[in-house]
Structure formats: C-alpha cells, structure tokens
C-alpha cells in the first residue's frame, strides 16, 4: 500500500480497497516502526485519524479531490494551527502556532491527512539535518549517512515511505539536495509560485516551498495544490497556475538541453559524473539535443548567497527575542539579559553563525562592500540564467558534488558544508525553478539529476522528469528494509 502513487491510492480509496483511516493507520504504524530515522519532530496521530475520518466522509459523499484522504506530512517550518511548530529549534520548542500557513490551509482544503511535522535543520540553515535541535536524521539508504538538508526529515520520510509525499522548502538547495541524497523527486518552484505566508522565514528573497515526492507524477499533483497567488504574500506572483499533470506525457523530441561546463569540472565526484552522463544519454534516446554551455557567474553564487541569506536572516530572526513567544531564559535580570540569554540559549551554533555573518555584512561601513556587491552578483547570475535559457529549454547538471556523506563528517567544517550546495544555490539567486530526480546510484547511494527551467516552467520540468521516469525505475527503488 505504501509503495503506491497518489493516483493509485486515490483509486484505492474510491474503489473501497482501503479507507483513509486504514491508510493513515498503516502509515502511523510505519512511522512508529522506523522512529529511529528521527524523520518526524511531531507525529499528530489524533489529528491525522480525525482528518482521515473526515476524508472518508468526503469520499463517500463524492466530493473528494485527488489528495483527499492521502497521508502527507509537513516540514516543521510551516505553521500549523494548534500544532507545535518548531522550525527545528529550541527557540520554538514551546510554540503552538495560532494559524495555518497558506500551504497547510490548501492541503487541508484538499482533504489531505497530515501525519505530522518533519525534522529539519534549525531554521532551515544546514545541508545535513545535523543542526536540528531534535537531532540528526538518518538517511534510510545508509543510516550512518546524512539525508541532506535542510528538508532532511522530509526526504528521509518520503524515501522510507513514512508519508506518501511531503512538503519541503528550498533557500539554497534545501529541497533538491536532500531529495538527491535520499533518492526522491524534489521540485523547487519559481520564486513567487508558492505562498510563503506561514512558512517561517530564513532568507525571504530566496525561500520557496515545494513538493517532495517519489515521482514527478506525484509532484505535479502536490504542486497543483500548493501553487497560486496569495494576497497575504506580496512576493507571490499573480499568474495563472497551469494543469501540471496535463503535459506529463508530452514527447521530448527536439528538447534542447544545456550542460554548463562549470557544473562538470573539478570538485564533482567522478562516479556521480558518470551516473549523470548515463542519465543524459537516456535523454538523448528520448530525442533531446544536448549542448555544452557556459555560465561564468556560477562560481560567484556561494559567496553572494552567504552574504544575502545571512543578511536577511539576521533581521528575520530578530523577532525571536523571548518577549512574546518561544524560548525565554530563566529569571532574566534585565532587558539586555533577557535578550542575550534567550537568544544565546535558544539558538544553535549554525543559526548564530549566520546571524553574526549577516549582521556584519549589513553594518555601517561594510554594507556596500558586501550586501550591495552581493546584490550586483545576484543580478549577473540572473542574467546568465536568462541568457542560457533563451538558448536552451532546460539546463541539466548535478545536484550535489557527491553522494550522502557521513553523519558528523562535515559538521565541524562550515565551508566544506556550504560547498555541498554549490550546484543548487545559483538557482535560488536567479529565482528559476529546478528539480532533482533520482538518476542512479554511486557507491550504493542515490544520485540526483538537476533539471533547471525558465521562470514558471514547472510544467515543462515535470514533463521532462516524468518522461525519464517512464523509461527508468530509479525513482521506484526503495532502500533496503523500507
């Protein structure tokens, strides 16, 4: 049952093969059974069964939608009314959100069942899920390796079949990198495609929520529910949402794929490179034309990102001050003590590091040298993408330089950790959509292929991913024991 696609499950619910309550109970059992992965921060069992019951009633009434009764899970960055929303931090360990994020509201409206809230790097800052206050998440393909981050809980849960599908968020690769390391399908939509309202902000100009699923077909269904203009989010874009499933079966004859030479140079693991070569050959067989392109500004993405994202986060995280909600230190002596200790004790190391970097970059005397310069680089990168995507339909490349690394291997070396996002970060700076799809294995661990498209071309990306998944079965493989 837990290996079925959303469409198959929807069919099973309608044919009476199983009820949503039964389906939900089965997933809740699996979550308990595999709690060692530490994928969930909260399991909302009572709420899930309640929602499943309501879904069964809707199914019986015949007014169900495709996602009605389907057990999903939310990254714990999305506010869920009446449910603890921690963002992976001690700072919000006691925070029960009083409202629903727009994305959560949309899934509720569709009748999806929420199994719980998924583990993540603290405030989405991390590439290994090791910065979570709730502990590291284990990669189901090898429990000694990381699942990636920051949406590591989501990737592990979907790969281990502890939810049919789940939400992630991507600021610098946080959907695509864990999707690649856990062998699932992840889509970071165009900036502005999915509402950010109720999604706890890390770097507002880069954050974007998206689906993490086992297949492109499921991702299309999930994105259909998540996408759309929201008047509560000024940066959400008011353009029409296409039918993402409609074009999945379009043929790829004549598709122009560009491979930036900067993506395949030094630093890329040779086995990963070879795996990607094979995947790209598959596209050639599907009728695509592959050309090498050059995007010279890509190498500037990491430094620009590590100015812009920390700068924004330094302000975004100021509201966590111990005054109105969240963690407050014991017996503060005065206001300054309240601030200093609440924030000093409530935030973890990586979060503090980024707040300090951002504060520094915005300080008088440094602003022009860092923030303004980074914004200029950001514009150049966007121009590079626009130019490339006027010459080719999509850009393909690696998602990560290597397969999943060991737990504890990079956590002591922030620079090395930051470099694991080298292929994903530029996409967020440009704001274009990108996917990671399973493309094979290296050293027994999943390898992801990244597909980058033009603004609002999610439908095209899903089509390209789906066609590949019609001729390969990497996305259907499950880790041993799951």
């Amino acid at each position, binding site marked *: 049952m837990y290996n079925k696609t959303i469409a198959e499950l929807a069919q099973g619910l309608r044919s009476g093969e199983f009820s949503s309550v039964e389906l939900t109970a089965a997933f809740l059992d699996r979550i308990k059974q595999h709690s060692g992965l530490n994928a969930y921060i909260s399991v909302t069992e009572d709420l899930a069964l309640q929602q499943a019951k309501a879904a069964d009633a809707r199914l019986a009434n015949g007014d169900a939608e495709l996602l009605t009764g389907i057990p999903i899970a939310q990254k714990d960055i999305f506010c869920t009314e009446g449910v603890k929303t921690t963002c992976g931090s001690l700072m919000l360990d006691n925070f029960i959100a009083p409202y629903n994020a727009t994305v959560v509201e949309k899934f509720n409206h569709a009748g999806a069942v929420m199994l719980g809230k998924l583990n993540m790097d603290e405030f989405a800052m991390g590439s290994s899920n090791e910065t979570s206050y709730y502990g590291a998440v284990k990669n189901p393909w090898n429990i000694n390796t990381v699942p990636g981050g920051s949406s590591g809980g989501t990737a592990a849960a979907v790969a281990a079949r502890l939810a049919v599908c789940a939400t992630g968020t991507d600021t610098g690769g946080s959907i695509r990198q864990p999707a690649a390391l856990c062998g699932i399908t992840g889509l970071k939509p165009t900036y502005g495609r999915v509402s950010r309202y*109720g999604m706890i902000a890390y770097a507002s100009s880069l954050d974007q929520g998206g689906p993490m699923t086992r297949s492109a077909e499921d991702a299309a269904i999930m994105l259909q529910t998540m996408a759309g203009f929201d008047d*509560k989010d*000024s940066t959400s874009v008011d353009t029409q949402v296409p039918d993402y499933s409609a074009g999945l079966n379009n043929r790829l004859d004549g598709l122009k794929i560009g491979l930036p030479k900067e993506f395949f140079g030094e630093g890329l693991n040779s086995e990963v490179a070879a795996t990607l070569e094979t995947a790209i050959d598959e596209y050639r067989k599907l009728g695509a034309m592959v050309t090498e392109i050059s995007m010279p500004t890509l190498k500037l993405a990491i430094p620009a990102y590590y100015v812009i994202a920390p700068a924004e986060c*330094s*302000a975004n995280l100021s509201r966590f001050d111990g005054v*109105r909600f969240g963690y407050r230190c014991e017996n503060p002596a005065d206001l300054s003590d309240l601030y200093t200790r609440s924030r000093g004790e409530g935030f973890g190391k990586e979060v503090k590091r980024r707040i300090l970097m951002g*504060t520094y970059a915005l*300080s008088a005397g440094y602003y022009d040298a860092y923030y303004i310069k980074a914004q200029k680089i950001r514009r150049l990168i966007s121009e590079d993408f626009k130019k490339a995507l006027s010459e080719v339909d999509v850009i393909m490349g690696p998602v990560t330089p290597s397969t999943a690394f060991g737990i504890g291997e990079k956590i002591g070396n922030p620079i090395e950790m930051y470099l694991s996002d080298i292929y994903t970060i530029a996409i967020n700076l440009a704001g274009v959509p990108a996917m990671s799809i399973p493309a094979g294995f290296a050293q027994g661990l999943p390898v992801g292929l990244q597909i980058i498209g033009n603004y609002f071309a999610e439908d095209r990306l899903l089509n390209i991913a789906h066609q590949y998944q019609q001729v390969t079965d990497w996305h259907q493989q499950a880790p041993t024991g799951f």
Partner: protein
Amino acid sequence: MNSQWETVIGLEIHAQLATQSKIFSGASTAYGAEPNTQACAVDLGLPGVLPVLNEEAVRMAVIFGMAIEAHIAPYSVFARKNYFYPDLPKGYQISQMELPIVGIGHLDIDVDGETKRIGITRAHLEEDAGKSLHANFHGLTGIDLNRAGTPLLEIVSEPEMSSAKEAVAYMRKMHELVRYLGICDGNMQEGSFRCDANVSVRPKGQKEFGTRAEIKNINSFKFVEKAINHEIERQIELIESGGKVVQETRLYDADKDETRSMRSKEEANDYRYFPDPDLLPVLIDEDFKAQIKARLPELPQAKKQRFKADYNLDDESATILTASRQLADYFETVVKESGSEARICANWITGDLLAALNKADLDISGSPVSHKRLAGLLKRISDDTISGKIGKQVFEELWQGTATADEIIDAKGLKQITDTGAIEAIIDKIIADNPGQVEQYRSGKDKVFGFFVGQVMKEMQGKANPGEVNKMLKAKLQ
C-alpha cells in the same frame, strides 16, 4: 537671547495617517481599545507572517507630496530598520531609507507678517511601534501592541528655521495642512502628530553648522517652543563657558522644562538598513497621480486667495476662515444658504461665532449653531426683517437653544417695524415731548440727532427699521 549667536532648527514630524487599517495588516487603527485587542498575527510579528502594503497609506503620502509640491518618487522602497526593543515586535521597523516616496518640497510659513519658505527634504512611510507600559505590572513592563503597525508619514524639513517661533509656525502650518488634506486627525494628545527637533547654534555669520542635538518626541506646540528655547540657551551657555556641544539625542521633560541626554552619537544604534525582501518596490505611475490630483482638496493658500477674490474679504478674515477646512466649508455654506453678502457672513463667523466657540472651547465641528441656523439668521438681517442689533439677541438664543431664527423672531416679536405710519406717530410724539432738543438741533447742533434716534428706537423696543427712522426724523426736524 544673546545676539552673537544664531540658531539652526530642522524638524522631523511624525503624522499618523488616518487609514482605517494598519499599514501592513488588516487590523484596525482605532485609538483607545483594550491593550492588544487590535493587534493581529502580523502586528505581533508571529513566525511566518508577512506584511502587505495598505494602498490607502500610499495614496495619503502622495496627496501630501502633491500638497507640498514635491517630487513623487515613481519607485520607492521599504527598508528594514533593525533594533531591539520590547514594543518593536519584529526586531525591525519597516520604514523607507534611501528611496522615500516623497522627495523635495516646501511649505510657506508666516512669522511677524513675513512669509518664509521652508524646504522639506523628504517624507517617507513607516510603521509605528507599540507602547511599553511601565505602570503596575507586578514590577514588570507591559507591552501594548495596538499601535504597532499604525501608518506614519515622517516629514523631514531642511535645517532652515532660525527660531523657536519659526519652528512653531512651521509645525502649526504642517498640522493645519495634514488635517486639511484629511490624511491625519492631528490629535496631539493621542500622539497622532508629534515631532523631533534638531537644534544647533553657531556664531552669527559663520557658515558651517554647529553640532546639533536632537530633541525627541515633542507632542505640543507649547512644548516645541519651550524645548527649543531651552535647548538654545543650554547650548549657548555651554559654549560660552568653554564647553562643547556633543551630538546626542535628548528628551524634553515638560514637568521640569528641561532637556536631558538619552544617548550620545557613540551609543547610537547602527540600524543596518536594507531593502525589505518581503515587500515589492512601490511603483507610482502617472495614472495613479492623476487620480489623486483629481481628488486633491483645495489647499489653504489657494483657498485664501480665492476667498479674498471671490468674496471680497480682507486678508485677516480670509486667513481666519481658511485656517481649517471645516470652518471654510461652514463659511461657504452660510453664504450660499443665506444669500447674504459674504462680508457680513464673514463678520458674523469670525466675530460672534468664533468668540462664542473660543469661550466654550469648541471648534467649528462642535458648534451648537449649525450653518443652517446661522444662515437663517443672516437671511433675516439682510432682508430687513430684523436689524443687526436684534440679530445679536437672536444669535444668543440660537447658541442657547435649538429653535431656528424665524421661530425666535416670531416667539419674541422681534420683527422690525417698517410701517411708516407707526414710526411717524412715535416721531411726532418725541418731537413734541422734547422742544429744547429740537431747538438745539435746528440751531446747528447735529449731534442731537442721535438723541432722537435713540429715543425713537427705545420707544419702539429697537424694532424700528433704522434706515426708515433716520430718513423720517431728518424730514420732520428740518
């Protein structure tokens, strides 16, 4: 004041915009609700919430910009001003820094009969913070976030005022303007209109500015004058006794009538402004401006000129009548409804009505005599039903009660007598009764004429038509 020194003053005025809802949320801006009942998730700065700009606030800022003939920025940007304070929920204030919505403009002020043009550097939109309540919370500080997110327009002047008097004139003129435009209720007690003053002194003739001190949060015209004068004296005394003014922020204590230091330049915050990534740039096109221009009310200066030209008013009356939009509207309605000569309407309003309102500490919107009732009275004066003198008596009655002028005239029998027969009989009687005065008049003592008029009016209880009485008396006494 010591004449070797001259003063340089610039003002930053914070005008709370009279929008229904907050600048970035849908919560109400009404004043005086129970603490924290008008603060929604956005105002509380809960995790995950986002600001959405209230278009009405933008409209009001543009209205203001047009009124001071300023450049309206086609592209302006909201920025985050970062600092920690318990009543600042997000740990930053959304404001505008590099690209404000309103650029360079000006405002003309009148001081001692001279008009002076004060430059306005800029005006920008921002959100207000909440309030910290230090009273009675078991030794803790209470936070009320009802005010958090209320839209403010910060209006920054050039340092072009040279006395406290000019500063007060500027502040008053600005106060008058924002209320005229309907963009701020101007309520200073509630903090809807308040200012910070930048004050420095320099030896007369020196070009460079002296070091300035900023006096924060002054919320009355009286305090602005006192605070600035106090600060000027303090700076001069300091320099003359060999000291140096330091750049700092000072707080005016109205109780003690002194300013005291809050923080020095060294302690000043680095606000780390940067563009707010949650908000798009504000784009203002020609269409938007044209729509607003069409809605723009007539401005005080233009209205004053029109009143002088169209109604033939003197400068003083026109100034008084255009001091507020409500008063100007009242005047124009009275002229229209009464059909009386505008100058007479103006005299009644600037004289009897305003005197009564001042005495009762009311403004025109609270006047017990509506424009309709005053027009009713003036109509009866101009059609000679009653004399101006009787009119004063009727006005008293209008002020006290609710009856119309006609009802009062009827009930009290105040109608003017124009029946020449009745007047003639009385005149004949008065002439017969006072042969001595008749003799005096006829021998050339013109002054005695007034005596006869008085006697006739007295006999007729003031109701005789004075014109008629004059004419007939003159004929009979020949």
